[in-house]
């Protein structure tokens, strides 16, 4: 409105100036009196002219004022209202370029500016949305906490991890989300940070809505107001549940390793003790057996009668038995703790079987047992010859013990199958009772109490056979028909295999 008023004043002033100039001119021309007289005459005669003049004057001025307001003042005011709206943050304004050229141009520029602002706002809101998304969906949990511990804001990840909605979290105290055992630690940490500003990562256990706790790394960062005063902190929380699990597992692995090392040490000590014991136990056997030998040798220590010689024989045999027992016990223990070491070499199987056949032929003859070696294939294998022999000896010994003295047959041999050599010792003896078959390879087992007296084994025989055979990479098994026959088999894998 002001501009209209201003223009009206200007025009009125202009009119007065023109009138003043006219009056002055008239005065100069000495026509003032005439003019005044004329005007008085006109007013007296026809006052309508004066009214008309006044009306015209008002109309013109009024039109001018209207013109100015409509084409200048209003558009400008609309622009100002729009500007006010924009200031208040509402970019949704309609600009209608109207009015005089200049005003219209202004309005057009204004409109362009508003569009530019709108575009900026769009870009900004996209950016804001993007960063808000980063914030909300970050794998890191964020909190904004006031100095007295109340949560001003949190990101979605935090709320979700804790089992709440964002709105539920805001306004609550951080203690609500701290595990009871770490409440004090957290308070101390917060207080220390307030005083020193130092916020190292610390491990704190947090608590979710359903009460489960999990470990997390927490660090604090200063939050200041515009004046630079500390008003709170940004809390950065990393959930370290997985790392914690891995770390625990590693620690357990280390503990296990230590335990295993400890056990191994104990085993070694046990082994050394056993070795020493074996030595100590065997030592007296030497003089026992030696003296028996001397006594038995004719005319060495004087002549002895048969009864005395038989007595000495008993002593000698029992000493031998003791020697075997000690050896077996030691071996069984070594096998049990996996301490058996084998002496592998290449040897020919038929040769070994012939040796066995020869060595036992005397005994077999004495017991009137038919002894057959049915090895046919020419095989060579790479294994511990002495141990294999030991197993064969053991099995043959068992076969002899359980085979009848008349019509007894023991068949030994070896054959190839896949990449293994299968040794067998078959007898036609009393066989193994069904109920006893499952425990044949267990320690200190004996088939039959009545056989125990005749049986010269130590009860460890089959255990040791199994240990040796399996230690060499093979397997041992048997087939037995009670009252009819027994066949023992064991396989030895062929590491280097020739077949002629």
């Amino acid at each position, binding site marked *: 409105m002001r501009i209209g008023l201003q223009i009206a004043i200007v025009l009125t002033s202009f009119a007065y100036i023109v009138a003043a100039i006219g009056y002055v001119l008239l005065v100069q021309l000495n026509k003032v009196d005439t003019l005044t007289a004329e005007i008085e005459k006109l007013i007296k005669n026809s006052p309508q002219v004066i009214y008309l003049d006044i009306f015209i004057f008002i109309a013109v001025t009024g039109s001018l004022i209207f013109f100015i307001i409509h084409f200048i003042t209003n558009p400008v005011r609309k622009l100002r209202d729009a500007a006010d709206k924009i200031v208040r943050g509402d970019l949704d304004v309609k600009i209608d370029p109207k009015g005089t050229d200049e005003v219209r141009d202004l309005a057009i520029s204004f409109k362009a500016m508003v569009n530019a602002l709108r575009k900026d706002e769009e870009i900004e809101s996209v950016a804001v949305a993007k960063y808000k998304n980063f914030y909300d969906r970050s794998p890191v949990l964020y909190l904004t906490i006031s100095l007295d511990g109340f949560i001003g804001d949190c990101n979605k990840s935090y709320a979700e991890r804790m089992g709440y909605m964002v709105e539920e979290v805001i306004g609550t105290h951080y203690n609500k989300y701290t595990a009871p055992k770490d409440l004090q630690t957290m308070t101390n940490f917060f207080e220390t940070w307030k005083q020193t500003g130092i916020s190292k990562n610390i491990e704190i256990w947090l608590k979710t809505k359903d009460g489960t706790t999990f470990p997390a790394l927490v660090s604090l960062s200063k939050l200041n107001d515009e004046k630079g005063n500390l008003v709170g902190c940004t809390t950065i929380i990393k959930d370290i549940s997985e790392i914690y699990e891995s770390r625990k597992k590693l620690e357990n692995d280390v503990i296990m390793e230590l335990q295993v090392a400890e056990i191994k040490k104990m085993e070694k000590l046990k082994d050394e003790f056993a070795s020493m014991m074996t030595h100590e136990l065997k030592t007296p056997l030497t003089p026992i057996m030696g003296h028996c030998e*001397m006594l038995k040798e004719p005319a060495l220590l004087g002549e002895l009668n048969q009864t005395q010689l038989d007595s000495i024989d008993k002593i000698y045999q029992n000493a031998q038995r003791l020697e075997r027992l000690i050896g077996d016990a030691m071996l069984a223990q070594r096998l049990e703790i996996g301490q058996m070491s084998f002496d592998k070499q290449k040897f020919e199987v038929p040769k070994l079987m012939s040796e066995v056949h020869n060595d036992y032929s005397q005994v077999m003859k004495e017991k009137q047992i038919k002894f057959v070696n049915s090895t046919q294939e020419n095989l060579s294998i790479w294994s511990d010859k002495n141990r294999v022999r030991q197993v064969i000896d053991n099995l043959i010994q068992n076969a002899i013990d359980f085979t009848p003295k008349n019509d007894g047959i023991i068949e030994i041999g070896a054959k190839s199958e896949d990449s293994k050599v299968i040794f067998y010792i078959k007898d036609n003896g009393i066989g193994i009772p069904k109920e006893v078959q499952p425990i044949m390879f267990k320690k200190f087992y004996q088939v039959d109490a009545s056989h125990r007296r005749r049986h010269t084994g130590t009860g460890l025989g089959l255990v040791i056979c199994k240990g040796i055979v399996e230690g060499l990479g093979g397997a041992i098994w048997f087939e037995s028909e009670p009252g009819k026959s027994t066949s023992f088999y064991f396989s030895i894998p062929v590491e280097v295999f020739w077949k002629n």
Partner: protein
Amino acid sequence: MKILLIDDNHNISDMISQYMRLKGCDCMVVDNGKDGLGQILAKNHDVALLDLAMPEFSGYDIIESLEKDGNLKEHKIIVLTAYSITEAKMKELEKRGVYLCVKKPVQLNELAKVIQSCAAS
């Protein structure tokens, strides 16, 4: 036949020496490693029977000392041992110059045969 027997166990050494003497051999008994080494070096024997497990100065120590000085083989040593010695270890000692390794308890007549063949070699 002169036999040198080095073993710290009197039960065993008494028995073996008694047997050897009954068989007509001279048998000198030494019950510790240090003296044993000295006697070996004195070269007063045809065959030496050496026990491995002795306190302070063991049969192994004797063997190592003899190896350093010269040829182990010429000392005609037969090792007797009750310790659970492995076949490999026995072979290794024999390779180094021990005539033979014999495990205890030892059969006396077998031992006699071994001694004979060692002296002859």
